[in-house]
């Protein structure tokens, strides 16, 4: 396996995702002779994992089972060890499309942070593109390097430990796209411009606060960027539920159930209405989850041309 190429079977050294149930999973490094504890019991890597097919059901020592999944940047984003606040897949998706990334693209990124976006970028630009990522925090930079190596993508990424606002990306006239997720992106716009190819490219800056966006937009204009556009994307997730609503008792004659006063089939959206004896109606609904992401950050895009 690697994060950029699917494999069929689990091998020694792979990073796999142990899936216990909805929103309950964790990454595991597969190693001969190692065991992993889950709430369903122990998984022995040599016997339970290595050589098995990705997507298999693995029975743990207590009889419970888990699924072992092939790693993807999206699963990694949901499970990676946080060293910083991270970007999630909803934002990552629009960033990737609006920066026009594809195989062969050269991308500059800062900061590397926990590498959530980095993995997605590398996946998209592989096998011929490259990611230059800059992280001013030394320990984080080193940790990111380690992870890229473990995940078999180190040949597609260069991690540089420096301050992007002072020293830039360490490359010039090379990038098709630049991404900034730093506290003062306006200080890095000049460096971003020189990192981008002379013939042009795209830039994106992620900021939680509108004041940051404002300063960034001014800087972008000052440096001659065009097509400056700020947007925000919000994910809405729905739980699929069977809902049962009781029919009020209006004192109608009890023996004539069918004359309750409505056509139950028109009330049910699945065409399989279910009116029970007590007089309630069943239907399927997509119920918004109780608490949702209300804001992650503003995304400002622009073009160098």
């Amino acid at each position, binding site marked *: 396996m690697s994060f950029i*190429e*699917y494999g*069929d079977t689990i091998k020694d050294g792979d990073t796999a995702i142990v*899936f216990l*149930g*909805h929103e309950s999973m964790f990454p595991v490094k597969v190693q001969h002779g190692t065991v992993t504890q889950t709430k369903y019991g122990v998984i022995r890597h040599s016997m339970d994992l290595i050589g098995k097919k*990705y*997507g*298999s059901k693995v029975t743990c020592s207590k009889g*419970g*089972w*888990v*699924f*072992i999944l*092939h790693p*993807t940047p*999206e699963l990694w984003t949901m499970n990676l060890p946080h060293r910083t606040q991270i970007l999630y*897949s*909803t934002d*990552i*998706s*629009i960033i990737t*499309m609006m920066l*026009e990334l594809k*195989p062969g693209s050269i991308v500059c990124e800062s900061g590397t942070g926990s590498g959530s976006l980095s993995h997605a970028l590398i*996946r*998209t630009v*592989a*096998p011929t*593109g490259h990611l230059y990522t800059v992280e001013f925090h030394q320990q984080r930079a080193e940790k990111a390097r380690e992870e890229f190596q473990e995940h078999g993508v180190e040949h597609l990424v260069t991690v540089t430990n420096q301050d992007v606002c002072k020293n830039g990306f360490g490359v010039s006239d090379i990038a098709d796209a630049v991404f900034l997720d730093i506290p003062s992106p306006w200080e890095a716009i000049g460096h971003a411009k020189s990192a981008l*190819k002379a*013939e*042009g490219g795209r830039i994106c800056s992620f900021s939680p606060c509108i004041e940051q*966006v*404002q300063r960034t*937009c*001014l800087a972008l204009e000052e440096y001659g960027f065009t097509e*400056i*556009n*700020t*947007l925000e*994307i*919000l*994910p*809405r*997730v*729905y*739980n*699929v539920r*069977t809902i*049962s609503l009781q029919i009020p008792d209006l004192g109608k004659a009890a023996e004539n159930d069918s004359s309750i006063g409505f056509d139950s089939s028109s009330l049910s*959206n*699945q065409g399989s209405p279910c009116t*029970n004896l007590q007089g309630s109606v*069943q239907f*399927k*609904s*997509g119920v918004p989850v109780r608490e949702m992401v209300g804001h992650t950050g*503003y995304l*400002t895009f622009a073009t160098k041309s």
Partner: protein
Amino acid sequence: AMEGPRGVRIREGDCAVLKRDEVFKAVPVLRHRKIVFEKQWFYLDNAIGHIYGTTFEVTSGGNLQPKREVEEVTTETKEAGTDNRNIVDDGKSQRLTHDDIKALKDKGIKGQEIVQQLIENSTTFRDKTEFAQDKYIKKKKKKYEAVITIVKPSTRILSTMYYAREPGKINHLRYDTLAQMLTLGNIHAGNKMIVMETCAGLVLGAVMERMGGYGSIIQMYPGGEPVRAATICFGFPKPFFDNLYEFPLSKVDSLLSGTFSAETVPSEPEDNALAEEESNGLNDKKEISLQETEEESAAEVAMEISRAQEQEAMDINAEDVEFKVNRGKENKENVREKQRKQWERRKKLIETAALLREKNADGVIVASKFHPTPLLLTLLEFVAPSRPFVVYCQYREPLLECYTKLRERGGVINLKLSETWLRNYQVLPDRSHPKLTMSGGGGYLLSGITVVLDKDKADSTNLETLNMEEPSSKRCKVEELHC
């Protein structure tokens, strides 16, 4: 990379996208062809040879001339009011009449100068606040400065364009939703993807762009042939199409039941009888032409391009002097050519069937006008375990059913029903706020991951169901009710 570098030059025959402010239009780049865009007409001849991303001014006679660096109109000592308490709308603040303005335009005066004259002849301009002056200038510029930018097509541009111009053609799939699909589906170089779409080929094009010519794509299509009007607009290099396969939806069942090959594989490539049989006689052909006309009448973009190609073909034919002389010979050759093409198509169909039979695809993307449930339940058969799938639907209800049916089937985990909201902002000093309008809906997605399908029925109450669905007491009640 197989794709050309950024900043490549505009060539004759390219598919380019015209851009004015937020409005896009895809057009073929051809000489001596009048283009109408945003109430302006012009020729693209002069654009050929310039770098994509160049902004042009439309000059008299419909010529394009690269716009030099913005020579900002230095509005002299700025004078502005603080509020509008004394500004009265008497309809007489503009001293220039419609006829005056028309006369200016007819004289071929540059838009920039017209705007300047409008400002000078506006009695209220100086009393307007600085912000209001800004807004006034922007509005007039938009109207009188004939400026267009020619950009290279990309998923970003084409999906934005389609959503704005022809949302019906792409089942109202908004561009941010398409972006989610590509990410949730882990689309990348080297994949073996199954794509089933009726979005004019836009989703296919997006997947092709992300795969960069590496790996393979099998497009499942309804009717006579796949629709790729939007795919053409991307201008992909030829090799991208070598690993693009297509398979008719109507043959999926026979493929799964194992009767496919017997029905369609001909013994001899030149065998006419078999060839005819394979094309299913008239019915199939009718379907093709019907679909073609339908597609053409609506997809303006595709029409533009296919018309251009026809035109080109005609031009070539007209120049060919020998054409008439050799018509007889050519007819025979045409027949042979047709047979050869037919045979090649069939050969590729057999290859495609073989690819599907391996049942090891790296994912499925569905975005169509059809009910998603039967599509997904069938297409998942061809996917390897531990691979993502994404289904788009303009409506939420069919996805609720699809969700339930997938749970019953098993072999999938991490099911998620979602949508995204997209909000655009105006960012200006002291005037930042969300844009006044936002899109009401860009469709819904159901995504998940395949796992090894357990044949043991006892497993159908898999762990995730227990964790995620309704509380167990309620579940019991539901099950009781269902019987």
